[in-house]
């Protein structure tokens, strides 16, 4: 039975720093929720608070409807996977995995059966007699997850469990984690600073910044409709282009001009009305546009503006091209090999349907979509 986990107005300070700022969140039964944010944003502290490893100053934490904020970690019946794995060096893999069961005085043959079954699932059966120091990073991680699984906990909390693995292994383990969650179905909260991991694993992503929840939503939603500049630039790789722009009406269309650039992108005229409805007519505006929403051609075409390609990053499946625009650059995603080299004159057009407009002052999205 996987429980629902609820946070209600949770606050915590470390000295003068407000690490968890009035956080409200409900994690549904069997849901996989990822806390995403930079280091120091409070995501790990929030996770540790749910586990009972940190106290909170105010608010309530409920696991399966029971308020647990004043109970000790051992009474909460949750499992925790640490970034450092925290496998005990003086115990064998078998003993490490059996350790949580020994706390509950489980009969010996049941301990043995459970450990072997979980080891089977995680393909670590051949490692049981070894000590953690003799294991590779991936195996350490499997054992650490195995130790969390043996107890069949109500909920799994994972603190960057694959953060210290190399890129290839991380990708493998990501798939394995997803498979495990589908099979075991325990309510899971997963902390990471890697937005790709978050997108790949999460049912819902919780973006945190400076102790405050910025946005909670499905990966698609967070990606397609970021509520503010922080989320817009944190989720997605390469990051969303953001530039201060001015919007003017011209020839029955709207011109969105990056500050300092000679020519502006052509947008439908409806943009001007919608911006004024959103109350942003006189405020400084920022345009946010993802690299894949910028379309590059080598020949002039309707509504495209001429720019110079600066740097090209060939990534195999596609290229990322830096375009000189005003004082800065916009990055565009093109098919591999489209732009032959730096200094090439190209034409760029923005996909109006995938453009975002933000209030430059507050950073909030204006919610204007075309």
């Amino acid at each position, binding site marked *: 039975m996987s429980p629902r986990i609820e946070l209600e107005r949770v606050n915590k300070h470390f000295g003068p720093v407000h690490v968890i700022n009035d956080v409200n969140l409900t994690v549904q039964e069997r849901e996989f929720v990822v806390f995403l944010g930079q280091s120091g944003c409070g995501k790990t502290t929030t996770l540790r608070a749910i586990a009972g490893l940190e106290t909170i100053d105010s608010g309530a934490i409920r696991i399966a409807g029971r308020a647990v904020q004043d109970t*000790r970690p*051992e009474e909460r019946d949750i499992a925790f996977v640490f970034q450092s794995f*925290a496998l*005990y060096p*003086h115990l064998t893999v078998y003993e490490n995995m059996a350790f*949580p069961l020994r*706390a*509950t005085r489980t009969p010996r043959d049941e301990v043995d059966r459970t450990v072997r079954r979980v080891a089977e699932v995680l393909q670590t059966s051949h490692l049981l007699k070894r000590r953690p120091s003799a294991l590779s990073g991936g195996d350490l991680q499997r054992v650490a997850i195995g*130790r969390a699984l043996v107890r069949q906990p109500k909920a799994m909390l994972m603190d960057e469990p694959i953060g210290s693995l190399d890129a290839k292994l991380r990708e493998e383990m990501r798939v394995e984690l997803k498979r495990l969650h589908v099979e075991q179905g325990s309510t899971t909260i997963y902390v990471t600073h890697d937005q790709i991991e978050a997108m790949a694993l999460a049912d819902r992503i919780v973006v945190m910044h400076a102790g405050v929840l910025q946005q909670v939503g499905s990966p698609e939603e967070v990606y397609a409709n970021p509520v503010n500049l922080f989320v817009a630039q944190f989720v997605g790789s390469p990051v969303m282009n953001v530039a201060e722009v001015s919007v003017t009406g011209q020839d029955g269309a709207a011109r969105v001009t990056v500050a300092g650039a000679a020519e502006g992108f052509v947008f439908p005229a409806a943009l001007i009305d919608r911006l004024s409805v959103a109350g942003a007519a006189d405020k400084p505006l920022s345009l946010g546009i993802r690299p894949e929403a910028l379309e590059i051609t080598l020949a002039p075409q309707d509504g495209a503006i001429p720019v110079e390609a600066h740097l090209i990053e060939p990534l195999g499946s596609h290229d990322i091209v830096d375009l000189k625009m005003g004082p800065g650059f916009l990055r565009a995603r093109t098919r591999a090999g489209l732009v032959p080299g730096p200094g090439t004159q190209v034409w760029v057009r923005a996909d109006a349907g995938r453009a975002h407009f933000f209030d430059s002052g507050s950073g909030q999205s204006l919610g204007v979509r075309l």
Partner: protein
Amino acid sequence: MAAVRTTGEVLRHRLAVVSLVVILFVMLAPILWITATAFKPRNLATTVPPTVFFTPEVSPFVKLMVKRSQLREKPTEEQLAAAPWWERLVLEGGEKVVRSGKGAVQPSGYPSRFLNSLIVATVSTVLAVSMGTITAYGFSRFKVKGEDDWLFFILSTRMLPPVVVAIPMFLMYRAVGLNDTHLGLIILYTAFNLSFSVWLMKGFIDEIPKEYEDAALVDGYTRMQAFFKIVLPEAATGIAATAVFCFITAWNEYAFALIMTNKRAQTAPPFIPSQIGSGLPDWTVIAAGTVLFLLPVAIFTFLLRNHLLRGMSFGAIRK
């Protein structure tokens, strides 16, 4: 291993080896000398120039263990013939073994002093290390108000040369009846070693990642259980190193033992030099007592040498 060495490197390497041999000889010479003396006949112990080659004998060790008194005349042939081998060694030295009315051999003061040393050093080491470990754990894992001040205060107990408090301690001990008791010495040595033990153990426990305990806590263990099941085994190296240092300090302590004890709880260090032979100090017996006294620490240190080597470099090794 560098495959190619320049002449300069070879020369420097040889110089290093030579100087190590010299240093080693200087360090070991006293031990060599005291060991040689322990096996010398009495008349060769204090010759000028010193005797280097001699036929070793065990009579000093026999004399060390039994109570003796001086013979007025030379032992007779019958006496020598009737005596077992070890008693003959004493008789040949011009002394006789003191026996009780029932004929049982009386031991000298040495075995009981040696036992006292063992009891006092072991108990005080166990106490200092266990209290030190718990205290260090507290300082390491919890926010203690004024932590730095407390730690400085603990260390400051080592800043005074211990001997300057010997007289006040003696008076206090006499007032509460702790003079010449095992408990008195144990308390003294425990207190003396505790500050050292706290500081050393704090260094070791700081090195143990907190996540180990966090993991145990969420796995359903209490903090106490986590301490015993995780922290203690992880700190084994530190505990061993601290124990060796504490044991050596307590084992070798001389000044307080001399002042605070005289018979019942006297330890070996003040007793050994008081070994009196016939008229003059018998240096061979003193040397024999010293050699035996060196053994426990040597064995203890040897058994824990691997831990010690790691312990010496604490902080340098990341697990």
